[in-house]
């Protein structure tokens, strides 16, 4: 069953149109990666789907329901969580408070979920009363993922989760993404680190100049000559 679908979405910043009719879909329990050169509109696509940018034309469906133009708050309530590329934690709040903010709209007892999420990230758990601003880059990324999981989303939207991380942290973050996916959460991510992310993805899309360029399984994209030349560095 399709969790998320964007159909011929047109969007951009103000008058500037960046996406020209882009279509993607994510099936249940899938990992989907979007790659493409800088300025292809990858992040714009995630922001539009999540309601952070207005969708000028085209439609967005979540679980078959038309959610085009809904606010992020509504999206979060429906089961979509988004992790921005940078500034994705509240620096002066403690680790635990960051997670509480992730659960802001939950009216039930979120404590059990918090313990469960913390257990998934042992080094963040050790520092639950530390201000998030004092964490290392990798730990912040873990906390950002943890925050996004607090509402038990059906799908996670990740904007460059491995950006500006040390190589060993990149591996760890991807391993966590795989863990999260195995617990039943679909994932769509935008990545510069194309090779690593395609390796663990079920499917992938290549965007260029705000349009769909290629689409296929993770493996087939890795083997494709065009992808290899243009995005994987030979």
């Amino acid at each position, binding site marked *: 069953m399709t969790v998320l679908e964007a159909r011929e979405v047109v969007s951009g910043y103000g008058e500037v149109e960046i996406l020209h009719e882009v279509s993607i879909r994510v099936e249940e329990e899938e990992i989907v990666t979007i790659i493409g050169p800088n300025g292809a509109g990858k992040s714009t696509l995630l922001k539009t789907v999540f309601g952070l940018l207005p969708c000028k034309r085209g439609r967005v469906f979540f679980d078959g329901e038309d959610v085009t133009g809904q606010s992020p708050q509504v999206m979060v*309530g429906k089961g979509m969580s988004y992790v921005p590329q940078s500034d*994705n934690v*509240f*620096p002066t*709040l403690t680790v635990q*408070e*960051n997670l509480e903010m992730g659960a802001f709209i939950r009216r039930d007892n979120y404590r059990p979920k918090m313990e469960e999420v913390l257990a998934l990230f042992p080094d963040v758990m050790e520092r639950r009363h530390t201000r998030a601003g004092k964490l290392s880059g990798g730990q912040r990324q873990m906390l950002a993922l943890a925050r996004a999981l607090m*509402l038990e989303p059906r799908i996670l939207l990740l904007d460059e989760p491995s950006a500006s991380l040390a190589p060993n942290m990149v591996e760890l973050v991807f391993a966590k993404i795989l863990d999260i996916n195995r617990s039943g959460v679909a994932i769509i991510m935008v990545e510069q680190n194309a090779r690593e992310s395609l390796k663990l993805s079920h499917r992938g899309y290549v965007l260029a100049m705000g349009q769909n360029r290629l689409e296929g399984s993770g493996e087939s994209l890795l083997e494709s000559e065009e992808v290899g030349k243009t995005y994987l560095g030979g």
Partner: protein
Amino acid sequence: MIRAIAGPAELLNKARERYPAVFENLGTAALWVLFAGLLIAALILYTQLFIVGVIFGSIIALGAIGLTLIYGIMKFAHFAHGDMMMLAAYLAFFALTGRIIGERTEVDLGWSLDRLPGATTGLGPLSFGYGLLLAMLVALIATVALFIVLDHLIYRRLRRRGSGIVIFAMASLGIAITARSVILMLWGAEPRFYVPGIHPAHEFPFGILLKADQIFIFATVAIVAILVYFLLFRTRIGKAMRATSDNPELARVSGIDTDQVITWTWAIGGALVAVAGVLLAIQAQLKPELGFTILLPLFAAAILGGIGSPQGALIGAMIVGITQEVSLGIELSIAGRDILPQILPLAPGYKFAVAFVILILILLVRPQGLFGAKA
């Protein structure tokens, strides 16, 4: 020869480029040492003025905490803060006396809080009775309501339109001027008092003279500050306010209802403004232009502490309050002649200029304030 002179400056510049963190921290440390030294010296040399400064600082603190919260969450300088303090003080006056006594208007409601039995009998050693406490509560409710209404009428529309911070600041300046004019129109330019007359001071150890009202002011501020701390660090909405102040975009993305957060911020800001205004009028008097005069110390305190940081505003307000009071008493004499009046004529009227000097100093050395994160 020229090389020798240029040498150290060059070296300093190079070192500054290479170790920016060290220089940053040295500047901050120097600032802390300066303020701590000044405060300790003031406490020893001018104990009486120091204590009065603490009282005045605690009133500034209430205003500055509200100012810094509003800035943190809505990112604009709320210029109406001081005048709203005064408006709240006059609203309490109205609730207490039931009287509007302007140049052209003369209204007496015929019913007011001071006509309740025993409402004006001084509570213990205090100059005022429970009537003023009730009046403060009425002013508090009215100010909270006014702040929320103003947000819906003005600021919310500006937000929806995506206006820049300058537009917000100008709108608040307009509200400030309106508030002052309303006060002038309804209650006139003459100073007014909740309880007229001279209130005697009591003597405490170390020769400190304090009025009972001043101790009441300090105690009230202490209680309110603890309540604000509890709200910000222990309640769901308070944490959401801190989160929104940290990163509004991420707050929205996390599903935090930022409209609700903003309404709460105005409510808390309004409550603090009302209490601060009434306390200021108890300590000083009710005077239309006092609201604008107090604005500078409010901003100096908020910026000194690091704009957006409530703890910083509290400490900044104490430093500003104490420095202002103590600066009035400084005497410097050489060979038995008092030289300070010639070079530094610090008449009481210059008191608020001290806040301005602090403001300039902090903006030069550490613009993010003592507790502020680096922008």
